[in-house]
């Protein structure tokens, strides 16, 4: 109560003073350093008690200048930059960028490379959804889900490390194909993983799907109808949980997705619980796709396009100290062929020359439509690379989703949107 008012009589507070108390809202700042905001996201919450009246997300705390940086590097080096935008789904960033550049070049990666790309992308989708599950569980209090999610993710990361040399931010998908083929025994490892994973997803579902606490915290929380979602530009599981079956893999297929047999998982709840169901279903569908990919990988084939003006010249392999040029290739360029050395040097320093033009290529990342608008002016550096990140648009819908809910529901809603601030801020 304000100090300049006359003191109320002792006893029941007068109606006037009660009205006054309720009209004062609280402005609370969540983040950017906060354990539960999925990264450096700052939320300004206007609260009336525990009810959220308005929410303003403030982003930009992870702005990295990736788009500007790609204009100062060659086309191939752009892969290493864009892969760090949405760092939980690096293969998708690389794939979108490479598809866009290949569209500008007018080439297509060889079939085996396309299958490898699809397979690694789907495994990345599972890994990303596992991180979502782990962090969402942790934020809502289910701490053991965090450990289970990361345990399974380690299996996937081991496969990534064996195949690409890195656990994250791989720079594996390159212009013209992929940079390396699977190692010895890679197919068996993925087979083992496929056999193990469905049982683990069953485990998570047993733990959470019928769990009354999980249901109470998620059902009815953060509603977003399909209509509102589309106006806000929301895509991905958040949109599919509202009933709209929109998936770039199905609507505008790329990289061979039209030849795979999978379902687009939707739900009707349009709340956090529905988004949980959609993501669990998507993990199972991704396993289906990976299985189909494995069948196609039984026969060998080239993984990089043949054109010497485009292909990455080196032959890389994963050794005990990480990824590097294979010994055979080093011998070849250093001792056997001067032309090969010169060619290698030119390709690595100067890079590819891409004819002028502009393209927009969307891919379906675990969070929604990840689009790349790439402009070339004919040189060996990009003129403009714009990443249309799904979390950037998804977060715009967050204020509407949390309005009228409790503060604790804000956590649940942000967790269910699954934003990755690296992609939002780039």
């Amino acid at each position, binding site marked *: 109560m304000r100090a300049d008012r006359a003191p109320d009589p002792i006893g029941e507070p007068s109606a006037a003073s009660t009205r006054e108390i309720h009209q004062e809202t609280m402005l609370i700042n969540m983040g950017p350093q906060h354990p539960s905001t999925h990264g450096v996201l700052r939320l300004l919450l206007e609260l009336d008690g525990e009810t959220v009246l308005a929410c303003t997300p403030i982003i*930009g705390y992870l702005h990295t200048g990736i788009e500007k940086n790609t204009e100062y590097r060659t086309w191939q080096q752009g892969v290493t930059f864009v892969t760090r935008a949405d760092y939980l789904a690096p293969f998708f960033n690389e794939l979108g960028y490479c598809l866009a550049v290949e569209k500008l070049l007018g080439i297509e990666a060889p079939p085996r490379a396309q299958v490898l790309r699809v397979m690694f992308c789907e495994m990345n989708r599972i890994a990303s959804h596992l991180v979502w599950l782990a962090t969402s569980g942790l934020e809502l209090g289910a701490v053991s889900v965090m450990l289970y999610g990361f345990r399974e993710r380690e299996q996937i990361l081991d496969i990534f490390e064996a195949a690409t040399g890195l656990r994250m931010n791989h720079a594996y998908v390159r212009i013209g194909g992929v940079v390396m083929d699977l190692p010895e025994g890679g197919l068996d490892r993925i087979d083992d993983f496929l056999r193990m994973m469905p049982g683990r997803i069953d485990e998570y579902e047993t733990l959470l799907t019928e769990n009354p606490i999980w249901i109470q915290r998620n059902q009815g929380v953060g509603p977003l109808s399909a209509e509102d979602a*589309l106006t806000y*530009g929301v895509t991905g599981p958040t949109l599919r949980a509202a009933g709209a079956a929109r998936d770039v893999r199905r609507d505008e297929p790329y990289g061979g997705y039209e030849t795979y047999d999978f379902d687009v998982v939707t739900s009707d709840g349009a709340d956090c619980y529905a988004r949980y169901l959609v993501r669990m279903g998507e993990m199972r569908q991704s396993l289906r796709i990976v299985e189909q990919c494995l069948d196609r990988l039984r026969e060998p084939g080239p993984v990089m396009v043949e054109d010497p003006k485009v292909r990455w010249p080196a032959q890389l392999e994963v050794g005990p100290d990480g990824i590097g040029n294979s010994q055979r290739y080093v011998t070849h360029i250093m001792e056997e062929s001067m032309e090969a050395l010169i060619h290698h040097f030119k390709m690595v320093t100067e890079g590819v020359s891409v004819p002028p033009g502009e393209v927009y290529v969307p891919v379906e990342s675990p969070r929604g439509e990840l689009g790349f*608008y790439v402009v070339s002016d004919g040189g060996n550096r990009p003129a403009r690379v714009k990443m249309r990140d799904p979390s950037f648009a998804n977060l*715009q819908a967050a204020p509407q989703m949390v309005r009228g809910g409790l503060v604790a529901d804000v956590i649940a809603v942000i967790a269910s949107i699954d934003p990755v601030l690296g992609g939002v801020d780039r």
Partner: protein
Amino acid sequence: MNAAGIAERVRTSFPDVVVARHEASVIVGRGELLRALGSFRDDPELRLDFLSSVTVNDRPGRDPRFWVVYELASTDHHHRLRVKVGLSEDDPHVPSVTGVFRTADWYERETYDFFGIVFDGHPDLRRILLPEDWEGWPLRKTEELGGVDTRFHGAFIPPVDRRTS
């Protein structure tokens, strides 16, 4: 509809259409932008009701210097169209499309933040990714890449080669 079909359909109202690499792009004037977006959305054959992204392509030394690029998509027909508006350097104003697509809110703020394009009619045009008091439009081609000074509040850190400690 494929890109050629979309181009034919659009060409009746907006003649400046290009089809390249199976993608259709149409150039519209600044004044007709809102009318164009509305007509693309309402046309039953096009039904371009989803705005994927808004960005700018900066070509310094040319006129128009800035090309504002809108990527439209259709949720029904699953086709796309690119709409481009050319702006000159001394008059980087363009009407805001937040009335037509609510998603353009943050995209236009980001474009303003990076390039300095002013979107007339935007409800809250201010910087979104860079600090509020940042000076300059970093993604313009005439701006440097940077990375030599740390512009931290209250402190000046010299570039790496001039540091004494």
